[in-house]
């Protein structure tokens, strides 16, 4: 054989097993293997860190490592090196688990034949190499495709702009009087240019979603408000199709911890789809309530009386570029990206999305979003049992613009940047910068909750002032005030559980936040 010797790391604490394996390697003759044998996970990790190995033979029961954990640690220590696990006869289930975690193969001790071992190793390495290559190519292709899509989408915008501009110019009578027939036809052209725009938006959205560039800004978001808003937006479309579009939101459903822009997007896509696949005189209903399965989530359902979905399609429908088979309904099919975008958006906000359907009778698209909970948000601050946690500091930052906000965009951007600045001002990792809890106004409040005393509160306040002053230099007209309040005593009631204590703190914080928010806003806005 002219192959290079394989450099094998054997991690095995049982002297007997190690001896057997060593014998097998020895019988292969010199030059085919270089074997390094260690007995501890810690030693194995050192060798893996140094590198220069082709494969690892790993026992899953070591004095300093057990089961799947050993596999994870080995893979993490040397991501490019394939791992074969060694197991006993009765551990095959565990071995299968190990392969799910990323092990290449498993060998059962006592069942390894002499000649089989080297072959198993060489095959494992070859398989690993091919897999890595495939992964790399796949990733590269995906990236190229995203770049291509992104480029095309952007280039399409200029001609589309010109089409939209001139159609609307003629339609608005800026180029002379338009007769009713012309008016109607131009409306068709305009409607189609809008559709084209939304397709381009979808294309871009998908490339962003998969490039992990999508920004989600979770905050206190009223689900009923968004449902009413989106139903109103689509009412005209529904009426034109003679479909009854209605909504119903349980009063118990108040707010989710989600990005309102993204939730609006999800609702529009789902309702739009429902309207598309529901025939004349049908119904589309949107409803929300607290999830029966998990009371920490709000459940939103979009129910239609449309053509329904075949059972084997209910999963596939959320895949990218999925197209409904011919439904017999008139209308354009679109790009097949909407539901895929919905799924991405829901997942990224910590929820789930699924569909149930009875072909011929309609479909119900359901998704969940976490319910906004101050208790959950501040839990990290109060979970650690330390004496200084008897007091709590609430740092209040008020941000405004002397010249008023010129656009909602600029305002949101400033808020986001200030959030980033404040994120770096906190005392410890346990402190929490609360998310946005109100609608945009002339001034915006930010709150930092810290389980600390006056000294800590003062320190955070000082740091926030310094950093904001530096940030404000590049932002003419920006005004801010920073103050803090310490709640004391908020001693734990004897025998009070951490959960109860946290809940009590959440109520206190909510009161303080409400109080700050309702203060007369005095910042001058033009």
């Amino acid at each position, binding site marked *: 054989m002219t192959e290079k010797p394989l450099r094998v790391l054997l991690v095995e604490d049982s002297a007997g097993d190690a001896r057997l394996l060593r014998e097998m390697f020895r019988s292969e003759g010199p030059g085919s293997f270089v074997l390094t044998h260690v007995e501890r996970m810690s030693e194995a990790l050192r060798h893996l860190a140094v590198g220069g190995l082709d494969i690892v033979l790993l026992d899953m029961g070591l004095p300093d490592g057990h089961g799947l954990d050993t596999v994870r640690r080995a893979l993490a220590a040397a991501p490019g090196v394939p791992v074969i696990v060694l197991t006993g006869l009765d551990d095959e289930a565990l071995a299968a688990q190990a392969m799910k975690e990323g092990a290449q193969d498993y060998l059962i001790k006592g069942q390894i034949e002499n000649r089989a071992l080297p072959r198993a190793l060489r095959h494992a390495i070859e398989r690993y190499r091919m897999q890595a290559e495939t992964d790399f190519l796949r990733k590269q292709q995906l990236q190229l495709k995203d770049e291509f899509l992104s480029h095309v989408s*952007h*280039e399409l*915008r*200029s*001609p*589309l*702009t*010109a*089409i*939209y*501009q*001139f159609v*609307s*110019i003629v339609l*608005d*009578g*800026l*180029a002379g009087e338009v007769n009713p027939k012309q008016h109607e036809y131009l409306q068709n052209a305009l409607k189609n*240019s809008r559709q084209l*725009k939304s397709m381009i938006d979808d294309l*871009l959205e998908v490339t*962003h979603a998969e490039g992990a*560039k999508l*920004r989600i800004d979770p905050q206190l978001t009223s689900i009923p408000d968004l449902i009413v808003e989106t139903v109103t937006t689509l009412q005209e479309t529904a009426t034109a199709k003679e479909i009854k579009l209605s909504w119903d939101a349980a009063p118990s459903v108040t707010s989710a911890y989600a990005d309102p822009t993204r939730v609006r997007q999800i609702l529009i896509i789902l309702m739009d789809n429902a309207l598309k696949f529901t025939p004349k005189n049908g119904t589309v209903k949107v409803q929300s309530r607290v999830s029966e399965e998990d009371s920490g989530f709000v459940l939103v359902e979009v129910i239609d009386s449309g053509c329904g979905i075949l059972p084997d399609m209910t999963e596939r429908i959320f895949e990218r570029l999925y197209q409904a088979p011919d439904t017999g309904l008139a209308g354009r099919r679109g790009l097949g990206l909407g539901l895929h975008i919905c799924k991405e958006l829901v997942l990224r906000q910590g929820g789930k999305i699924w569909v149930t359907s009875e072909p011929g009778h309609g479909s119900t698209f359901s998704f969940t979003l976490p319910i906004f909970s101050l208790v959950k948000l501040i839990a990290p601050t109060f979970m650690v049992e330390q004496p200084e946690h008897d007091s709590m500091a609430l740092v209040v930052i008020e941000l405004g613009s002397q010249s008023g906000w*010129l*656009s909602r*965009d*600029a305002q949101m*951007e400033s808020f*986001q*940047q200030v959030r980033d600045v404040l994120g770096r001002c906190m005392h410890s990792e346990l402190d929490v910068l609360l998310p946005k809890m109100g609608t945009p106004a002339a001034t915006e409040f930010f709150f930092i909750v810290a389980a600390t005393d006056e000294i800590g509160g003062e320190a955070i306040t000082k740091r926030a002032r310094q950093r904001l002053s530096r940030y404000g230099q*590049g932002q003419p007209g920006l005004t801010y005030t920073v103050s803090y309040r310490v709640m004391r005593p908020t001693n734990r009631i004897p025998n009070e559980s951490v959960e109860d204590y946290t809940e009590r703190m959440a109520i206190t914080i909510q009161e303080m936040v409400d109080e700050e928010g309702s203060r007369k806003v005095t910042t001058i806005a*033009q």
Partner: protein
Amino acid sequence: MPNKKILIVEDDPDVRLGMQIRLEANHYETFFAGDVESTVPAAQKHTPDLILLDLGLPGGGGFKAMENVKADPALAAIPIIIVSGRTGQETRARALKDGAKAFLEKPVDNQELLAVIRQALGPNETTHPKPGAP
């Protein structure tokens, strides 16, 4: 009161003409530049009240053009609205950070464009569209 002046910086002649017709119908006076190089001279010559700026401009792109305008003390205060075929959070964030008043994506809805222009021109806005003008 004279009409407010808007400098349209856009390399696509059709899009430029479309904007001109729409803006003039709403009583704005319009001027043009088609690349980065001619942006500052056009602004100096016409002293616009507002600049509509495309990002995909020949000669270095809209960001460069904005930088040049902001670097001239006589022009730095003119509000700039980006009207771009390029989208994405990063582009938007950069535009606003560099001093743009607003960021609009192409194709821009007519009503939205006019609303943002009115807002950026501020309360001294004196242009009143003739009744019924879209």
